[in-house]
């Protein structure tokens, strides 16, 4: 048997489908799974008993009606794709409700196997099953499984493959709906057959039943006038008999069928209670304490993301710096090679910059997966219902927003769980205000560069909070204007609290991180190369200023200064051996120790005295800086005074040892050398600025600079922001490239240090604010377009958010500029 067998997993939310799926497929999934919600069907492969199996994990649904998008997708998939077997994953500890979906799967005529999952939980609650009997009553094979321990999965696959081999053996029982309903079903089905309006793949009975259940999709599918007339008459007839909507009566009969089957076969020896979960809920869903606890938990997630991520991030940064150094080593010092620049500045600077944030991304997703897998996410939606109600949404809209902290794309897909279209659109439009993982990389780059350590976590939290507040305000605005309407009804299931398994956490984390890495290796690599080219070409060959002459001038000035140092040291005028000894280190040219060269010089003793004094003074100063940083003592405090005293004593000792050498060292370290460095750096910056301004990126950046200058942004940020529209991570990559290109290759200064030289903390904050609000990435816009079914909404999202970002950042920069 060489044919691939397709097995679809269907079941209620939280029944453990995804856990079983992950256990069976491991990491061999074709499509990445987003933590939290299975929003699209996910496929994976595994082998069982020598048979190649394609597994499909369907979104969790409570029924197969046409009321929500996921139920429709699930139903459409089952009808159109006809998987060889459907495994109905059932939470054995909540059997009757879970079997409701199973009865609908049976009615659809799918070859069915039921997996009674979480049977360990059911057992611990004293629930006993007579499986052979229940299996006979329902007419389906039943296996017991414990998904998170992988128990019973082999039997489940055996059963599924057996059913796949002989589908007719798995003819499940038909539910009888009672004489009155059955009569109407037959009437409608007869007309369906007569009108030959039964589409392929459906049975007349099923269609008739769905029509009586007021299923809009099936009505459209059939679309026959005669049938509609009969359905209308039947519905009217049933309403008068039962005094209730036919779909509710039909649902009631399904439940009656289930409880009839369970009566004989399921015994509960203990009263159904789960005290521990309820006890946790008395605290976590408390009407006063609940929301603060939730905010605290979110804070904890961000704190963890930052503090734990710092070390591995540092290692990765070092690794890339080292790799860049090794590659640079293949070329002679100061080489102008384009290939070197492409490899080191373009690819390592760009992609490496993005990849080094992988630990942060992994930790963020670990946090979100923890909240989701433990069952807390549903509580957050429950708690937030009250607040969300005020903005005209309900608690369920909160789940997509939380997922938005990971990535906007699955968040927009997750709005499918919302029944009302106005709700969906509102949520979709504001979801990008939830800072996604890609924007975290921007914050993670900027925050440590501009804010002291104890301000870093609060700063990150503040940025996230601003996003949330803006989303709330915007949603309220939308609900009051273009998406006006009554707040929709809210109901959500709160699953039992569970201890998440390491495996499922690992799978979630890995999936997401892999997507991130893949993005870095593809989209971001291409954009990095493109950006590098844009910042490197066209090359300028003739310059506006004569930089060589300017450099020579400042060098001559330095030599004059060194003569002055020599005189201070007590050397005779015109002695050039001193200058010869010191100049190389000022020019940053590696040489042998200057002291060695001048050993036979008569002034050797003085020169080495100077070098010694200089080193001692430099060491003393750096020690002083280090000890001040360590104690973080304030000026005027006892510690500070003590340190200052110790320092001046040490300085006095140094001066007393050799006065002239000490004075010369001071002059050299404080005046001559810094002045030279300042001048050469200014000349270098001007040269590079001229070079960059000549390139494509420079021209674009300078072109838009007048528009973004009022926000505190320069042309470099401008070019990076344009790239960030493709993917937010690109911003980091591009800043890396821009600042590496504008570096002569000698500095080992990290990007952060360069940024903190170039911008003020206010500018940095404005930058984060702008990135938070402005145009979400292309993928988000495309997803909004697809999910809303109209380009109008995607355009509104793009333009609305960008205008909002501009206005708000402008206000913050200008007003804060006045205050500071």
């Amino acid at each position: 048997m060489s044919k691939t067998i397709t097995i679809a997993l269907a079941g209620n939310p939280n029944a453990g489908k995804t856990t079983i799926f992950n256990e069976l497929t491991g990491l061999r999934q074709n499509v990445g799974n987003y933590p939290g919600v299975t929003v699209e069907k996910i496929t994976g492969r595994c082998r069982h008993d020598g048979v190649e199996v394609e597994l499909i994990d369907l979104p969790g649904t409570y029924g197969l009606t046409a009321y929500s998008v996921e139920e429709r997708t699930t139903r459409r998939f089952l009808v159109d794709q006809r998987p060889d077997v459907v495994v109905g994953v059932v939470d054995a500890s909540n059997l009757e409700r879970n079997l409701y979906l199973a009865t609908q799967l049976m009615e659809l005529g799918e070859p069915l196997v039921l997996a009674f999952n979480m049977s360990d939980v059911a057992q611990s609650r004293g629930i006993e099953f007579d499986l052979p009997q229940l299996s006979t009553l329902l007419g389906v094979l039943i296996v017991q499984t414990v998904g998170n321990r992988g128990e019973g999965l082999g039997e489940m696959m055996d059963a599924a493959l057996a059913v796949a081999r002989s589908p007719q053996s798995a003819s499940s029982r038909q539910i009888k709906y009672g004489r009155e309903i059955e009569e109407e079903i037959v009437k409608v089905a007869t007309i369906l057959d007569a009108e030959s309006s039964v589409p392929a793949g459906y049975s007349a009975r099923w269609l008739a039943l769905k029509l009586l259940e007021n299923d809009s999709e099936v009505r459209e599918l059939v679309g026959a006038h005669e049938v509609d007339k009969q359905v209308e008459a039947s519905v009217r007839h049933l309403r008068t008999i039962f005094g209730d909507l036919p779909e509710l009566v039909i649902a009631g009969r399904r439940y009656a069928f289930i409880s009839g089957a369970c009566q004989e076969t399921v015994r509960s020896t203990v009263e159904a209670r789960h005290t521990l979960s309820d006890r946790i809920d008395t605290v976590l869903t408390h009407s006063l304490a609940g929301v603060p606890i939730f905010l605290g938990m979110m804070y904890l997630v961000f704190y963890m993301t930052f503090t734990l991520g710092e070390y591995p991030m540092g290692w990765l940064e070092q690794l890339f710096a080292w790799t860049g150094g090794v590659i640079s080593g293949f070329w002679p010092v100061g080489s102008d090679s384009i290939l070197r620049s492409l490899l080191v500045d373009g690819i390592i600077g760009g992609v490496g910059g993005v990849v080094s944030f992988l630990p942060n991304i992994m930790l963020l997703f670990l946090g979100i997966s923890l909240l989701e897998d433990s069952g807390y996410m549903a509580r957050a939606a429950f708690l937030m219902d009250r607040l969300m109600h005020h903005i005209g949404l309900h608690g369920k809209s909160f789940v997509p927003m939380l997922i938005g902290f990971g990535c906007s794309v699955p968040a927009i897909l997750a709005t499918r769980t919302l029944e009302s279209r106005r709700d969906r659109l509102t949520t979709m439009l504001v979801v990008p205000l939830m800072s996604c993982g890609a924007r975290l990389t921007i914050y993670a780059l900027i925050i440590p560069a501009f804010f002291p350590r104890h301000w870093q976590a609060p700063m990150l939290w503040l940025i996230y909070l601003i996003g949330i507040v803006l989303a709330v305000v915007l949603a309220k605005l939308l609900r009051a204007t273009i998406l006006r309407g009554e707040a929709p009804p809210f109901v959500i299931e709160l699953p039992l609290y569970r201890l998440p398994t390491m495996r499922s956490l690992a799978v979630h984390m890995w999936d997401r991180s892999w997507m991130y890495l893949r993005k870095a290796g593809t989209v971001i690599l291409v954009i990095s190369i493109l950006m590098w080219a844009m910042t490197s070409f066209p090359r300028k060959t003739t310059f506006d200023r004569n930089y060589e002459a300017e450099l020579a001038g400042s060098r001559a000035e330095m030599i004059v200064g060194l003569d002055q140092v020599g005189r201070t040291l007590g050397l005779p005028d015109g002695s050039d051996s001193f200058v010869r000894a010191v100049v190389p280190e000022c020019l940053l040219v590696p040489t042998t120790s200057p002291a060695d060269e001048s050993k036979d010089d008569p002034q050797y003793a003085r020169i080495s005295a100077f070098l010694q004094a200089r080193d001692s003074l430099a060491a003393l100063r750096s020690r002083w800086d280090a000890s001040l940083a360590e104690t973080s003592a304030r000026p005027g405090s006892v510690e500070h005074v003590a340190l200052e005293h110790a320092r001046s004593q040490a300085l006095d000792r140094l001066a007393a040892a050799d006065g002239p050498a000490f004075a010369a060292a001071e002059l050299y370290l404080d005046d001559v050398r810094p002045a030279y460095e300042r001048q050469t750096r200014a000349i270098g910056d001007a040269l590079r600025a001229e070079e960059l301004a000549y390139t494509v990126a420079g021209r674009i950046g300078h072109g838009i600079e007048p528009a973004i200058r009022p926000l505190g942004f320069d042309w470099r940020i401008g070019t990076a922001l344009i790239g960030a529209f493709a993917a937010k991570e690109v911003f980091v990559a591009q800043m890396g490239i821009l600042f590496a290109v504008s570096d002569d290759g000698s500095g080992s200064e990290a990007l952060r240090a360069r940024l903190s030289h170039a911008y003020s903390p206010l500018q940095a904050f404005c930058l984060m604010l702008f990135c938070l609000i402005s145009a979400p990435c292309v993928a988000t816009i495309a997803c909004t377009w697809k999910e809303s079914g109209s380009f109008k909404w995607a355009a509104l999202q793009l333009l609305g958010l960008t205008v909002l970002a501009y206005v708000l950042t402008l206000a913050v920069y200008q007003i804060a500029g006045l205050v500071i």
Partner: protein
Amino acid sequence: MIDHCPRPLSRLGPGQTARVASLGGGRAFQARLVSMGLLVGSEIKVIRASGSMRGAALVAIGPMRLGIGRGMAERIMVTLV
């Protein structure tokens, strides 16, 4: 004496048990409640009342725990048992 008059679920206090007399809201929403296991005749125990702060109510139906929005809880009629 137990009062058998139907009343909205939102008026029940924590710990009270009641039986669902009728559902409210749109047809689609009623069908959703039924597929989630809340139907006429279900026995409901209130764990957290929706109270005066317009929060959602937390109820138990058998082994399930459902959060029901205030607006909805006002439209689900129950009788005390």
